[in-house]
């Protein structure tokens, strides 16, 4: 028998010790744990991949912007969302409260202040009645203030929702809530979800266009039209009505369109190789955006040019060609709808009427803001109507929260001008076209406009309704991210059935 070296013996000893530690007992124990783990996983269905679980991930990495059909036939083909950033006062525009008038100047009762947080109100503020005169208009007898004389002629085409509520009382989180379904950054906006679901019929224009006015971007910044975790090809494209229609699209001096075409082809070839190796959807997104930018060099200046519209149209909207203003944007929105753009977002800044100056007083600044947008908004609705587009275009108008029935008293002092603080509990938005009933009013607030007594609507419900009119079940338009399917309406949202035909 050959002599075993000390090393071999040692190794053999280790091996047999190891074997001693692997008994049938150990095997049974471990496999029991294993079966248990499988069952546990099966309980939650977490073993399913998005495709198997039926999550409707419609992303086609080859052609992210290719037009796609909706889940069911929707009445609306496009959406125009007019967001008044800063939050317009519903008490001076839509929600008529004669009871509040009676309490004008009185101290605010403690029951309305207990346990609530306000942005600027401190101590005991005074109640402030509506600063506008309300009358009834149209066949529907809708109450409306005299701040919106043009709008009063189209009340019968519009559905007012007076009972919208949110849980955010500051601008950026509230705007993100309205448009992305979460008060925190990182989620895609409604327009991104819509282009993700529907693509774009016009291959030469982006499917989601953003136009801003009022002098500033909204507080939430560009994230409010961002694509979040969706491929970035679905982000909103900000177009301007002054100067270059889209920043950074123009070729630099010395490069002409052919050279640009050749360089994009070369860049995309390399990108394609990269994609073949890594399968990163962002690469496809970037390739699509290069292509789109190239097409946009021609198509966007064409569509953004309002000079060749007839004079009568300019009169109707009250446009100011060459300058940046809401009226120009409203006209552009109509033109973009005609060109097949799916989601057009207009942001107008300057509605934050705290009353710290004349421009933010509810009886001065707010009235002026209304004058800036009233004619153009009305013109937009009527222009869409006469072109037979209102029945297939959903128009939404609103802010991110409402304003308090109390007069703002910053730092507990009486302010020189009349203003109202942020009020998340109740505010008004309206919708028109795209299968929405006209001349109706949904929801009610209490006699002073503080809380909602009937028909509570959350931002998720607004989003669900928008998706519904476009032909999507908001619970089924999903995208898988961080290991779970996400949807625009997160875990909530009911379609507001009462206002759809």
């Amino acid at each position, binding site marked *: 028998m050959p002599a075993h070296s000390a090393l071999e013996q040692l190794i053999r000893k280790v091996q047999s010790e190891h074997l001693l530690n692997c008994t049938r007992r150990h095997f049974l124990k471990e496999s029991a744990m294993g079966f248990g783990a499988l069952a546990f996983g099966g309980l939650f269905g977490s073993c399913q991949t998005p495709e198997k679980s039926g999550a409707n991930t419609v992303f086609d990495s080859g052609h992210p912007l290719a037009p796609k*059909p909706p889940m069911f036939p929707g009445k609306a083909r496009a959406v125009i969302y007019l967001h008044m950033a800063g939050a317009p006062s519903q008490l001076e525009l839509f929600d008529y409260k004669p009871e509040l008038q009676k309490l004008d100047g009185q101290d605010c009762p403690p029951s309305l202040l207990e346990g609530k947080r306000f942005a600027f109100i401190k101590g005991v503020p005074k109640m402030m009645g509506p600063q506008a005169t309300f009358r009834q208009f149209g066949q529907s007898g809708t109450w409306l203030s005299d701040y919106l004389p043009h709008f009063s002629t189209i009340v019968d085409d519009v559905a007012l929702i007076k009972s919208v509520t949110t849980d955010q009382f500051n601008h950026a989180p509230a705007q993100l809530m309205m448009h992305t379904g979460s008060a925190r950054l990182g989620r895609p906006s409604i327009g991104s979800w819509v282009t993700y679901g529907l693509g774009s019929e016009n291959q030469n224009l982006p499917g989601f266009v953003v136009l801003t006015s009022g002098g500033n971007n909204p507080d939430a910044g560009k994230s409010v039209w961002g694509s979040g975790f969706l491929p970035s090809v679905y982000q909103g494209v900000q177009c301007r009505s002054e100067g270059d229609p889209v920043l950074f699209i123009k070729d630099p001096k010395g490069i002409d369109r052919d050279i640009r075409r050749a360089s994009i082809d070369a860049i995309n070839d390399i990108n394609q190789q990269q994609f073949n190796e890594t399968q990163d959807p962002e690469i496809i997104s970037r390739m699509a955006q290069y292509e789109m930018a190239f097409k946009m060099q021609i198509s966007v200046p064409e569509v953004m040019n309002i000079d060749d519209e007839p004079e009568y149209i300019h009169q*109707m909207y009250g446009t100011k060609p060459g300058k940046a203003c809401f009226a120009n944007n409203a006209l552009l929105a109509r033109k973009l709808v005609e060109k097949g753009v799916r989601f057009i977002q207009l942001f107008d800044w300057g509605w934050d009427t705290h009353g710290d100056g004349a421009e933010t007083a509810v009886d*001065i600044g707010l009235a002026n803001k209304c*004058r800036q947008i009233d004619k153009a908004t009305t013109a937009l609705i*009527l222009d869409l109507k006469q*072109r*037979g587009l209102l029945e297939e275009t959903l128009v939404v108008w609103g802010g991110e929260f409402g304003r308090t029935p109390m007069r703002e008293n910053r730092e507990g002092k009486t302010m020189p001008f009349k203003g109202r603080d942020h009020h998340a509990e109740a505010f008004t938005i309206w919708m028109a076209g795209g299968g929405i009933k006209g001349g109706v009013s949904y929801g009610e607030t209490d006699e002073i406009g503080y809380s909602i007594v009937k028909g509570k609507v959350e931002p998720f419900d607004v989003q669900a309704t928008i998706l519904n009119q476009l032909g999507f079940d908001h619970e089924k338009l999903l995208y898988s991210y961080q290991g779970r399917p996400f949807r625009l309406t997160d875990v909530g949202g009911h379609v507001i059935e*009462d206002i759809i*035909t």
Partner: protein
Amino acid sequence: MPQFLAELLGHFHPVIVHLPIGILLIAACFHVLAKTNRYQALRPAVSVSLLLGMVSAAVACLTGFLLSMSDDYDPNIVANHQWLGIATAIVAGISYVSERKNFKYLSWVIVLLVVMITFTGHLGGTLTHGDGYLTEAFYKYSEPGEAIKPVENVQQAMVYNDIIRPILATRCYGCHSNRKQKGGLRLDEKDFILKGGEDGVAVIPGDAEESELVQRIFLAHEHEDHMPPKAKPQPTNAQKDLIKWWIASGAPFDKQVQDLTQPSDIKNMLAALSKTEDNEKLPSSIPGIPVEEAPADVLTRLHKHGVVVLPVAQNSHYLSANFINVDVPNDSLMLLLLSIDNQLVWLKTGTYPVDAEGLKSISQLKALTRLQIGNLKNSHNGLEHLAKLENLQYLNLTGAEIAKENVSALKSLTSLRNLYLFGCSISSPEYSDLKKSLPNVAIDTGGYRVPTFASDTTKVTAGRE
């Protein structure tokens, strides 16, 4: 026995009862299998299973008895289930004894046992889930959802019978009627409604605010006491308001609508009841009957020319076509469309020039319901072809200059719902003429004016007093 213990044990009945069902059925299986050569070794198992089955059946009867005392089920069905259950336990005992004594007709006894288990079990299921639970699936998906029938002459209708009762029937009877009485409450007859249930009176005639029924239906949807329960069909806001109004008016069972005071919003809701819920909806622009898929090669060729052709929805073969990306006029395009004439329901030609030939082709797209044409420059005398489109609901000709001689052709489009003629240079007398010929069509020639007020160009500088 203290009440809570009785109820606690009683609630275990649905759990425990599955034991005798399983054990006795497998005893029957063993009995049959033991007769074969291969499984004769199972013979001793039969008596053991029957014994265990008998014992567990007895326990099931006990817990079932406790359950019947503490919960709210239909007394008739409970009685049948109870006696049948007890009889089944007894027959299980008989089976056991027969097996031990090698009774000649043991197989028949076991057959009887299985039959009794089936009937008893079915009654148990009916108690829990209601009548017709097993065959529910046959009906649920073929009939339209529960809609309330329209009321002919609403002011003369009986408030309870014609208006309130249908609402209660479609939203409440599922759990609060002769089949089931959740919370001890029945809402299917006057006496029961006024009597109330376990938690007291549900309806206080004359006081809607204090009536529990009203309070619960107006609770927030997510509130745990909200009625009907979250997953069940909900009454509309109008229906809730009508119930509240009826109770506030004294919950009369024998009055007509016109006998009660009606605030204006109630009046509107009542008026709306005289139309069906569907009346308000416009006819769908997509036919209800399915159609076969369009040939794929036609779609590919259309795509090549830049025409966007898409199904109108993911589960539909009906198509919509849009010429928005078509740069170059191409005569073959209209002909290609004809190959999908069964499927094409929506067509938008945008600013693509449509000539007389094109109009002729379009008029053969018999399934079209929505049509938009923006450029008729080269068409002479082609418009009357469009009258052939019997299903056309929406015709949008805005921006298409219609030659004078073609305007009268529009008069033949009598089955339209909406006709848009903005920018078509239709004169006033032509418009009046059209309106007369097309009385059921909503014609919009546009040209809306939004006048410039002084306020549009001036600014407010001081507040009001």
